[in-house]
């Protein structure tokens, strides 16, 4: 910097012409200061990864009662960050402002919420609420890419919030580390403009639907399982709500979760991206006159995407219809007959005393008592891991393969049959089936807790999946 020269020239010029460039310089330096401060903030966030408690404590935890403060212009930092969106025709500065002044709530920080929350945060949504009650587990990470290995055991809502803040510190992230239910959902939902259903269970889907109808909020709903996904925006511009299309919840026993049915990670990731897209379109009123649709995604089909044209809301719908009978939130766990999580509940079909503990089976095995060990998991699971000398007949094929078991029962047809599965649920109906067929004179029992318990209690080297 040539100080002597500038001092010399300013002394020569009159004051009105010398002030202006100095003021410009001050403004430039101020902007530079803000940019440097943001860099420092980002670096701090990164460092805080190794200090989870500090970062988590820093995050706002409650639904703020104050509405999101609206801004009337973007800062230079925002213009620099969102430049590639700002130059888009039909989006531009107005689209970016709409996002900046929008509060969105992502319910579920799992496979759908992971990609959705990251894209919404990155795109510049002003306030992003994230709801989840669960903690990060290693088996989530193949699809829930908003979390990472170092955050195992951390609440998912907090972990997701940290990732969004690291991507874009300009997005205000609110953590809702709770189970959403009829007692708390309405005020939380009312505090946001758009709700994204990225949940994993039927009960919470009906809860969100009703709360969004009652609160007048559009609901961008996504779901995914195995290789399939669905995407629909409900309760938006006269379109249907979830109940209009699915008035009856599916029977609990027909609902498969990702833990039991499996899911290819990129499938919820794809649907989550599309949910972010739909939410951005609603916030910016893009394509707002398009008729409502449901998009079906079939990852392993030659036609990966299909779009079903939907009708308007149903006049006789019990929540969004002309004379609704639901005017406040109900008990959705009872309504769906299934819990508000995607955890597989334990089944109690057979009294405990008539079953075998892992330890009891271990001693039978060690004593080499002749018996048949029947594994009723699907073949794809049996191929991952199995106990020595077990035979595999999946539960649903059991009646057709009874003879294969009889072949193993010895000359007197009196060997005991022990049934094992992944968690000790499917083994119970299997025992009932074998009893009905009366296949052995020996005892028929199943192993409590299945192979997961076996790994916990007997053999820590036995894999869990």
């Amino acid at each position, binding site marked *: 910097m040539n100080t002597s020269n500038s001092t010399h020239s300013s002394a020569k010029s009159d004051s009105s012409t010398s002030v202006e460039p100095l003021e410009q310089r001050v403004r430039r330096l101020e902007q530079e200061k803000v940019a440097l401060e943001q860099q420092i903030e980002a670096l701090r966030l990164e460092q805080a990864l190794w200090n989870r408690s500090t970062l988590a404590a820093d995050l706002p935890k409650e639904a703020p009662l104050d509405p999101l403060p609206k801004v009337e212009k973007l800062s230079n930092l925002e213009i620099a960050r969102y430049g590639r969106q700002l130059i888009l025709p039909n989006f531009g500065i107005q689209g970016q402002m709409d996002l900046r002044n929008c509060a969105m709530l992502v319910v*579920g920080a*799992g*496979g*759908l*919420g992971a990609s959705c929350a990251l894209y919404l945060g990155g795109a510049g949504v002003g306030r992003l609420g994230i709801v989840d009650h669960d903690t990060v587990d290693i088996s989530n990470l193949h699809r829930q890419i908003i979390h990472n290995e170092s955050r195992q055991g951390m609440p998912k809502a907090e972990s997701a919030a940290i990732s969004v803040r690291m991507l874009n510190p300009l997005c205000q992230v609110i953590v809702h580390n709770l189970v959403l239910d009829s007692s708390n959902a309405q005020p939380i939902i009312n505090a946001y403009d758009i709700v994204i259903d*990225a*949940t*994993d*269970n*039927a009960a919470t*889907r009906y809860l969100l639907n009703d709360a969004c109808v009652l609160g007048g909020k559009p609901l961008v709903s*996504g*779901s*995914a*399982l195995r290789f*399939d*996904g*669905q995407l629909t925006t409900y309760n938006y511009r006269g379109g249907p709500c979830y109940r209009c*299309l*699915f008035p*009856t*919840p*599916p*029977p609990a026993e*027909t*609902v*498969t*979760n*990702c833990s039991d*049915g499996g*899911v290819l990670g990129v499938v*919820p990731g794809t*649907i989550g991206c599309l949910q972010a897209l739909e939410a951005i379109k609603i916030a910016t009123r893009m394509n707002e006159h398009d008729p409502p649709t*449901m998009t*079906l995604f*079939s990852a392993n*089909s030659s036609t990966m995407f*299909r*779009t*079903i*044209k*939907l*009708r308007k809301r*149903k006049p*006789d719908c019990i929540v969004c219809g002309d004379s609704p009978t639901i005017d406040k939130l109900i008990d959705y766990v009872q309504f769906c007959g299934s819990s508000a999580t*995607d955890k597989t509940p334990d089944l109690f079909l057979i009294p405990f005393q008539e079953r075998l503990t892992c330890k009891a089976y271990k001693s039978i095995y060690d004593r080499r008592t002749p018996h048949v060990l029947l594994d009723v998991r699907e073949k794809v699971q049996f191929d991952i891991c199995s106990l020595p000398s077990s035979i595999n007949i999946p539960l649903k094929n059991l009646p057709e393969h009874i003879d294969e078991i009889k072949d193993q029962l010895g000359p007197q047809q009196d060997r005991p049959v022990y049934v094992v599965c992944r968690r000790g649920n499917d083994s119970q109906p299997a025992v009932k089936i074998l009893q009905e067929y009366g296949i052995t004179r020996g005892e028929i029992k199943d192993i409590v807790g299945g192979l997961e318990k076996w790994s916990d209690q007997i053999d820590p080297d036995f894999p869990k999946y």
Partner: protein
Amino acid sequence: MPHFTVLYFASAKDASKTDSDKFEWVEGITSQDLSQLLLDRHPALATVLKTSMFAVNMEYMDQDQAWTVQPGDEIAIIPPVSGG
């Protein structure tokens, strides 16, 4: 002979063990007849059909109103998916 096609999604695909079927079309198959035809071919669809949405040629069909199958129709059975 004219036909119509049925596409199965999500749990309907699991229950029928296929992603699509072709059926011979005859005059006057109503939505109720269709459900029976599907059950005759795939008894395992019973519970799934009760909670599924139907679409004909990529358009939602209200199950409360009777409709008839036309030759060449592509009918989609869409059960709700809960997972995520």
